[in-house]
């Protein structure tokens, strides 16, 4: 009996997560089709999808694996530009926009995953704040390199150079990525539907991973590294798995993001964006996947909704951020909340704390 109850409980969390995402998609898609959404809201849909995927994937590293990463946007950037180059190269080869988008997402993910391996090998030998600073450093390195990269396409194929002059494009050649300016004239392929599919895929991978033996091992490493080693778990291998899966998903999100705008520049993928994603994760709750989904959405829309405040917009956003952090994390508030919930618990059915939190 107990077993079944537990089974249902773990799965009810997953069902709720998928459910909320699917319902939100259906509702928004319906409203969008019925022309009931304003242009700006329509415009938020794809980036929100990308940020949800980024937050969920970062949560895998920060929440589940317990490592502070400050360079997540670097993987996003790698994925974005890999995806843009892929899509540009497939133009004329693959006719379907959707097909090109999917190929771009895949390539973006794979390239970012490879970057994840390259970064992970040295990084994961470190711990705590040292790991944090090294991920930050890698993020900045990736940004610096992409910001000086020129990629063009002509009939001979793809050309890569470190300055416009060295690109030597043949006749009819097209510059895809142009250093500091980034990619311009990108054909916008991303759709809300693709974003929704990517979220589902991400949830599927991450939730399955968490609930499998791999996920247990990753969490075990987080909770107690020495004990995990003592029961035969290769700590570095599992930190690595979490890190690379996370980079792969971030790369896919990056490709979705990059192909949603006709201009994307490398400066977007620096420390500030990494921090923004981290804020989504921490606010949503460490290891709480549904929390990441919701907080990414809310925190993306919040500053946009505050546009009417003009000059006071960002300062109020900062105040809201601080207040929400205090409210959700302060031990004192937690105490008060637990008293309140205990009282509420008397009225409603008593609830146990979910295992996934």
């Amino acid at each position, binding site marked *: 009996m107990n077993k079944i109850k537990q089974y249902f409980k773990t799965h009810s969390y997953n069902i709720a997560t998928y459910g909320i995402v699917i319902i939100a998609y259906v509702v928004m898609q319906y409203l969008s089709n019925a022309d*009931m*959404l*304003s*242009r*700006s*809201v*329509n*415009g*938020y849909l794809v980036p929100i999808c990308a940020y949800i995927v980024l937050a969920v994937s970062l949560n895998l590293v920060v929440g589940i694996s317990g490592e502070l990463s400050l360079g997540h946007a670097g993987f996003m950037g790698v994925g974005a530009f890999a995806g843009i180059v892929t899509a540009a190269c497939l133009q004329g080869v693959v006719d379907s926009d959707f097909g090109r988008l999917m190929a771009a997402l895949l390539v973006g993910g794979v390239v970012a995953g490879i970057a994840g391996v390259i970064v992970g090998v040295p990084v994961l030998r470190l711990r705590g704040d040292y790991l944090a600073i090294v991920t930050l450093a890698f993020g*900045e390195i990736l940004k*610096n390199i992409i*910001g*000086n990269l020129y990629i063009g396409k002509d009939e001979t194929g793809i050309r890569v150079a470190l*300055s*416009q*002059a060295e690109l030597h494009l043949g006749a009819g050649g097209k510059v895809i990525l*142009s*250093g*500091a*300016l*980034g990619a*311009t*004239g990108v054909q*916008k392929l991303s759709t809300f539907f693709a974003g929704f599919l990517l979220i589902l895929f991400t949830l599927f991978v991450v939730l399955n991973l968490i609930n499998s033996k791999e996920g247990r091992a990753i969490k075990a490493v987080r909770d107690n590294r020495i004990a995990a080693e003592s029961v035969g778990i290769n700590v570095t291998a599992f930190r690595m798995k979490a890190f690379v899966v996370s980079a792969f998903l971030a790369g896919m999100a990056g490709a979705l*993001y990059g192909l949603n*705008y*006709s*201009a994307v*520049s490398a*400066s*977007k993928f620096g420390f500030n964006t990494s921090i923004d994603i981290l804020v989504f994760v921490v*606010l*949503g*709750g460490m290891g*709480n996947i*549904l*929390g990441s989904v*919701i907080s990414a*959405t*809310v925190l993306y*829309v919040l500053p*946009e*909704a505050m*546009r*009417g405040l*003009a*000059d006071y*917009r*960002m300062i109020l956003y900062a105040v809201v951020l601080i207040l*929400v952090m205090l*409210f*959700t994390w302060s031990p004192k508030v*937690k105490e008060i*909340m*637990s008293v309140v*919930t205990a009282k509420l618990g008397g009225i409603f059915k008593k*609830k146990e*704390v*979910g295992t996934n*939190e």
Partner: protein
Amino acid sequence: MKKLFALLMAALMVVTMFAGCGSAETPATDAAGGEAPATDAAPTAGTIKIGSSGPLTNDYAVYGKAVEYGLTLAFEEINALGGLQFELRVEDDEADAEMAVNAYNTLMDWGMQIMAGPTTSGSAAAAAAECAADGVFMLTPSASDAAVITAGDNVFQICFTDPNQGVGSADFISSHNLATKVGVIYDSSNPYSVGIYTKFMEQAAVVGLEVVAEEAFTADNKADLSTQVTKCQEAGCDLVFLPIYAAEAAQVLTCADKIDYNPAFFGCDGLDGILATEGFDPALAEGVMLLTPFDASSSDPQTQEFVANYTAKFGLEPNQFAADAYDVAYAIYQACTAAGVTADMSAEEICETMIAQFTSMSFDGLTGDGMTWAADGAVSKLPMAVKIENGVYVGVE
């Protein structure tokens, strides 16, 4: 669970807000999060809605703000003339492509008919594609990258393109025999700076300038520019070309002064405003030459009036961005008046007439007389080379 609950509540609030947006059939002006229109509470019938965006927060805010102020001042003056009435709204785009699209969408929801922005190139490239797709006329005051106007036939610039400035600078330096050995210090993380630098290098090879030092910095490490200056000195440069903004140029000048290095300095329009920087010692900029379309200390009455009004209204001296924005407003006004544009026309209709006007008209503004536009959207105006002497610009021929 509690946290989740709190978040869900917040999400619910946001959704409710959206519902508010959605249910309002007309593009939401005051529904989006209790938003108030930028100017009057009740928009008067018959105003043409002009939108713009720029970085109003963070690093580049000074430029976004200058554009906002320039546009605000110009449209207030225009509205006071009593003819066509305009309503202006400027949104923050943080000099970021994603935010620029969000800002653009917000402006479209508001009912924007003409886009008088964005301020920076990256943002403008993203917004230009949207404008081209929607058929909204766009005239950017300061997004000078050549890629911006390639987005569509309806995207125009009032500033020089970066390649033009690069070529112009190299030609000027060469034809005036200003240097034997040239050094360049540029911002490799900034498209404006890289754009000028790239073309300058190409043209330098053509006209036979010897460039012996090419030193870059990025937005992340611009705190220390002394090494770049020392390298130019080591290389024996007698002229240092600075295709960068005023704040960094001030740093370069300070560094050079400290190590007693006195080459000629040559800059582009980004350097404008250096004299107006609070606390800057103008003596450091003595002899600096720059290509600029605008001179705040000019004796031209129109410019003097602009500077006086601007300073009175916003408490600081206008720079080239503000002047460009001011010109944008008047150019739009001139075109609208000439074409008989009315407020009830759709953005697409206005766009058609504006394209026709801009490719045929000539405009006199603060930043140049007899400006004309090519069909690709690039402006043709004469760059003005000036030299700083005793804290003011002096024309160089």
